[in-house]
């Protein structure tokens, strides 16, 4: 027996609830809105929070891009994309950032600045930045309510004492709209400034923890820091203090991944955002055609 498959896998009630939750998240920037995360036909921790957002928000005729650590071709991205293609007839897919209406991502925000008509969905494993300093959820809620993030700042303080700099590489606690501090998902520090006054709506979904929160368009997103020890993004400097460039496209203003060349054994740096790298390369080729 074959049952008629619901568009977007989720039933309409579930989708409505996620949309309502999303609206509330937009209305209270940075606040973690609880929702009844549904069972998905994949393990929790594989992006079910982001997936439920995508399934509830995308419609036929729209174009989707799924990335995992900047790549459209990693196993997680491929699986999610094929699941959405399978359950959402009429939804197109793309690898090109500029062509997508909705981008679901794990661990990265695309390098290419997003537009007002685009939506970014981030997969979140641990939504609450306070979980490292306070075990009780009840007390965490109180701290959030009163915007008391002093204990997070103490962690930053201890970091500077020990290492002379803030060593948080991912999930940098970021204050949204002057109140709630969010865990912006495991994006690198490099991506945090992209949240600030972003033209696109950013929705963050944590399936296992049953929370949705948002950085609405044109909203302040400020990483926690000290007045005299400001937040800094990764510098990617070589031994001579020069900015490293992508070994493939030569770009020197993107987030770089570090590889070890299996032949030479040397360290190689490449753009983490595959589409950005392709675009840079294509631009160069075009330039070569014109000027070459």
């Amino acid at each position, binding site marked *: 027996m074959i049952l008629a498959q619901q568009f977007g896998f989720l039933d309409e009630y579930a989708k409505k609830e996620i949309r309502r939750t999303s609206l509330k998240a937009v209305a209270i920037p940075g606040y973690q809105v609880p929702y009844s995360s549904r069972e998905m036909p994949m393990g929790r921790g594989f992006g079910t929070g982001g997936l439920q957002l995508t399934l509830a928000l995308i419609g036929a005729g729209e174009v989707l891009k799924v990335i995992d650590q900047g790549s459209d071709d990693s196993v997680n991205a491929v699986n999610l994309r094929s699941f959405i293609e399978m359950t959402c007839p009429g939804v197109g897919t793309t690898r090109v950032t500029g062509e997508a209406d909705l981008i679901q991502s794990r661990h990265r925000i695309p390098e290419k600045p997003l537009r007002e008509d685009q939506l970014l969905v981030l997969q979140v494993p641990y939504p609450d930045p306070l979980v490292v300093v306070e075990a009780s959820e009840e007390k965490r809620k109180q701290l959030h309510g009163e915007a*008391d993030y*002093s204990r997070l*700042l103490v962690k930053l303080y201890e970091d*500077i*004492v020990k290492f002379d700099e803030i060593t948080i590489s991912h999930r940098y606690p970021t204050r949204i709209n002057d109140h709630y501090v969010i865990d912006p998902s495991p994006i690198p520090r490099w991506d945090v400034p992209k949240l600030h006054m972003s033209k696109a709506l950013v929705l963050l979904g944590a399936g296992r923890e049953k929370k949705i929160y948002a950085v609405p368009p044109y909203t302040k997103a400020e990483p926690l820091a*000290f*007045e005299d020890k400001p937040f800094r993004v990764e510098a990617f400097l070589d031994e001579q203090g020069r900015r490293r460039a992508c070994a493939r496209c030569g770009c020197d203003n993107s987030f770089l991944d570090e590889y070890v060349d299996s032949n030479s054994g040397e360290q190689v740096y490449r753009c983490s955002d595959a589409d950005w790298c392709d675009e840079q390369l294509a631009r160069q080729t075009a330039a070569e055609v014109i000027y070459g």
Partner: protein
Amino acid sequence: MDRVLKVRNLSKRYSKGCPVCYLKTGPDFDSNICPDCGSVVAAHDVSFDLYAGEILGIMGESGSGKSTAVKCLYFDQEPTGGTATFYDQGEAFKLFELNKAEQRRLVNQRFGMVYQNPHQGLNFEISAGGNIAERLLMSDVDNYDRIRQRAVSLLTRTEVLPERMDEMPKNFSGGMQQRVQIAKSLATNPPLLFLDEVTTGLDLSVQAAILDLILEIQQQSHTAMIVVTHDLGVIRLLADRTLVMKYGRVIETGLTDQILEDPQHAYTQRLVASAL
């Protein structure tokens, strides 16, 4: 003299209670457990005033309600009845009518608390300096160098070597942990400081040094303090005035030298006689 705190008829009863709880407990009944309903009347009808720069001693044995009274004022516990008014910077705060956020502002910025057990007052997961930083960060100081400087000066004042400020509290001796706790409590220059059995369990010489430090702080910064203790020696050395509590009631109050040399209540007389 400026009044800092006015406490009237403060009561704390555990569990629901019955109409005779307050009538059938207290020193006259040698119990703080209601014989009819079994409720514990931890404190009842506690009233006192505290002025700027004054040290008030609250003395009693364990179970007398002395710590309960202070915990209610510090919002560690919710009182069953009574009022408390805190006068600060030209404003009067009815403590038990404040919302949680207002209570926390007072606790974080305007009150200081030093507990008997340093584990209660200090975060052992972070350095001594980090503990002080925490209190400053709660008060919206967000300059790293200023926080470091303030921590150095506080630790120097409480005679902890500033070179050790980045060490974990567990590396310190009991007396040093108390000093760090005191430094932390003073970080925001609070006008009101609570000290709950702060020298209990310490070596005698360490005790003396801590008491010395407390008096020095009181003389220098005019901080009003409430000192809770079962130790007559601590009362004698620190307190200007003393409340004596038993089974949840204040049975005697007076100038400390008067309480010690001319106690009025049978219980206080026994207490003083046995200590001398």
